[in-house]
């Protein structure tokens, strides 16, 4: 069995947000208080009680307008940096492909994982009160019972497709090849940070939909461990490195945010 993943075809997403609600429902997460937003994305960002979020984007090009909905959650890196960043091993990458925060009892609340996530807001969410992390775990409890993740099971249009990552990758390539005029020739998640279990294809360039396309294509752990694993003062070295990485990525993102 290969690793599982989900292929998100943004051109097929109608923005019904069934996935967002299904996620909360399955994981029994409470509703949070929200207020009006002009884009209708709500809550405006992911938070501890919303670990999947559909972002609405209005894209203007001259006198043409386009509108797209993009479901965001943990991308489930093939080589997850959160896993590497955690000293106490609260995370694991399961053979099924899900990256799971499986051991909250031993979590010390250091937040390195959150700082380390190259996708910033996308991945891990911190609860201030309980010093705990929550993230999408691809409905691991469903996966092991042979069920699809709740969001995929709910999606009415087939914008979300669950399957083995290799097969999904193949299908994504085929869809692009069949409709070269429609799709952007890029499968997000194929190579980013060494590959992620969630893959995206789109007809609007990913940068315009809030994706970070400037992340390195080599896996971050590979990159960092190459230099750091041999260092004697690991406990000091890693946090500093990740903190620096966090500051760097955050600043980049803030600069970009101006455009959205």
């Amino acid at each position, binding site marked *: 069995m290969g690793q599982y993943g989900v292929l998100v075809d943004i051109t097929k997403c*109608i923005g019904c947000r069934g996935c967002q609600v299904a996620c909360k*429902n399955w994981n029994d997460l*409470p509703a*949070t208080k929200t207020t*009006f937003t*002009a884009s*209708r994305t709500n809550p405006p960002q992911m938070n501890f009680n919303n670990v999947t979020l559909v972002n609405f984007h209005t894209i203007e090009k001259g006198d043409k307008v386009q509108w797209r909905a993009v479901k965001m959650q943990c991308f489930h890196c093939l080589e997850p940096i959160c896993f590497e960043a955690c000293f106490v091993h609260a995370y694991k990458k399961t053979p099924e492909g899900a990256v799971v925060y499986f051991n909250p009892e031993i979590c010390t609340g250091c937040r390195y994982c959150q700082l380390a996530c190259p996708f910033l807001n996308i991945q891990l969410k911190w609860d201030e009160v309980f010093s705990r992390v929550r993230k999408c775990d691809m409905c691991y409890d469903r996966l092991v019972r042979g069920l699809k993740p709740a969001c995929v099971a709910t999606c*009415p249009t087939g914008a979300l497709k669950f399957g083995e990552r290799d097969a999904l990758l193949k299908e994504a390539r085929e869809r692009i090849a069949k409709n070269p005029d429609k799709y952007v020739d890029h499968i997000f998640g194929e190579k980013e940070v060494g590959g992620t279990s969630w893959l995206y294809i789109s007809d609007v360039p990913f940068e315009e939909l809030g994706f970070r396309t400037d992340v390195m294509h080599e896996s971050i752990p590979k990159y960092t461990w190459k230099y750091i694993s041999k260092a004697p003062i690991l406990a000091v070295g890693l946090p500093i490195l990740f903190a620096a990485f966090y500051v760097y990525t955050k600043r980049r993102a803030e600069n970009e945010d101006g455009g959205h």
Partner: protein
Amino acid sequence: MIGANPASNHPIAFRWITKGREQKGSKLIVADPWFTQSAAMADLYVPLRPGTDTAFLNGIMNYAIQNNLFHREYVVAYTNASYIVHPDFKIEDGLFSGFLESGKYDTSTWQYTGEKDPTLQHPNCVFQILKRHLSRYDIKTVSEITGAPADVYEEVCKLYCSTGKPDRVGNAIYCMGLTQHTHGTQNVRALAMLQLLLGNVGLPGGGVNAERGESNVQGACDIGVLFHVLPGYNPVPSAKAHPTWAAYREKTTPSTGYWVNRPKFLVSMLKAWYGEHATGENDFCYDFLPKTAADHSHVSTFQDMTKGVVKGMFAWGQNPVVGGPSAVQAREAMKNLEWLVCVDLFETETAAFWKAPGADPAKIATEVFLLPAACSYEKEGSITNSGRWIQWRWQAVEPPGEARSDLWIADRLFKAIRKEYQENGGVFPDPILKMKWDYGEAECDVVKVALEINGYEVATGAPVQSFTKLADDGSTACGDWLYSGYYNDVHNPPCKRRDNVDPSGLACFHRWAFSWPANRRILYNRCSVDPSGRPWHPERALFRWNGTGWVKNDVPDFNAKLPPVETADKAFIMLPEGQARLFAPGVKDGPVPEHYEPVESPVGNRMSGQQHNPLAVLWKGSIFDKYAPAESADFPYVATTFRLPEHYQTGGVTRNQPYLVELAPEMFVMISKTLAEKLGLKSGDWVRVATARSEFKAKVAVSSLVRPLTVQGRKIEMVCIPWHWGFQGLATGAIGNDLTPAAGDPNTRIPEYKAFLCNVHKV
């Protein structure tokens, strides 16, 4: 897709649209005033000004005729295009011949002469009348009226008319954007006529498809929850026209077409209702049926409250204080009620009308009862979807607390009323005391109700297999002839079937639930083949005449015992003439659609001196008679209402659902960037939106999804208003329908929710 936004409002329907596009390479055209979620999915999007759909559709028909893109063989065979119309029939300055001072039409010149010209050349044949009438709707004119850019509109005409070829088919989807106008019937007719011209009715993948506003609104209509029809679309008797069974029978039964069977359906219904009391001697208790003497549509009913005619009201799963037009006025009218019973899941705005903001409870004497109802998963029964599939739904959980199913409530209510009549009598107790009501003593059994709706033989009690077995002599009973067959087997009723095999590959799914009538999946399916019985295209071979018999992939909507030539001119079996109407003598406001402006419009009517539909129902002299004049300076912007995916209708349920409130917490109105600039507004600012009827405050969303349209050289701005909020529930906000006009369509009385005038000020 016109006046419909299934991506937002019917997401499951969009699943099949997505599938069709993927598997068949279908193209999606969306026409809508603003760039909706469906528009975002379209291959081709075209904007149009609210209320100009008739002009828009007439223009496409004109394009098809002028460029010879219509399906001639289909049109000649299956429509009334060849019929010759009365020589005095005329269309002048937006009026049809026979317009009377009373504001109605004398339709004597709208009738057929009885002759036909299959060459379609006769100057007074339907086709030539239509051609002349539509020729005024050229691309430039339509673009000027609707604001659709001429080049995009032409592309739409070209693409859609390509479905006029026999090897192609086009599917028309509409919703309340088309119906909720003072000319809503004509809008839908125009869409149906376009489909007929292009040969797109009666084929797999074709049709005129309504996206209904509620999951079971089709079932509600079928079973008679309308003010003008009994179950199965038999007309409600009128005191004047149908005082007796003989009069009803004579006046509502045509001499040809399937409705010749109406007496069988009505007698069987009366037998179901009055059982042994209904006999041939007493006209099967026809006299027990209430007869109407006046208009009992929604607004009339509220108007009658102001006059003290209507003293009490049941609002059963309905929230008119948020959902009805001119809601401020409706609340005013309700203050005159002596009693009000609301049956709902939560205390809706209707149940709480007496404590609405601005109301003084001390001055309202209405006694209000709120009966807690079970939701759809807490009760058993059937729902009918837009494709007419009757699907049984089982109970998943028990309702909480004292909540009960609607059936339980109706049963107790009836029994209490009957007891009251038994003990204390009344003016006319028989219709109550003689009613057959045997669904169980203590508890009402839903299966018994289903069996009665399906129909049974009176002598044996055995379920009838289909409506073809119904008789007008009292030997059969049937609650709704259309549903006959859906529950014809107690142990294995068709509506409970769940087998999704599709041997023909034409998405018929005959073994999934039951589709009325007779489990037929595609209506008027004789049209799927040519007159000689050859499929228009081998890929869509619903039927095929093999020389000796029919090869069938659906339940025929024609007499399949006969060879094709004998049914070729009777494809539309429900019509007396057997052929579809490109010219409809029975439509109150005209036999062919003509463009009229909405009652409240920012411009004059470019096509005629009739500013709006001359037959529009304006509720003159009542509290609902409040409209801005055309080209009003006080109300310069076009307003239209819309729905969001997260809230359902009036929000009575969804605004009490925390997850949905989290997604869509606050009421807002949506405007363009240009209007925002003009008014100095940015997203999140509070605005006051005012119409001739009322005003409210809401936050504004400035969006490039809304854009001004150029209409007759002027830029017209638009204000888009969702109508899901009210003053009850977890998320409260202004009631969108406080602003909408009550003005109604003359055929249906549907109010003009979708096009009116407003003004916007920064607060």
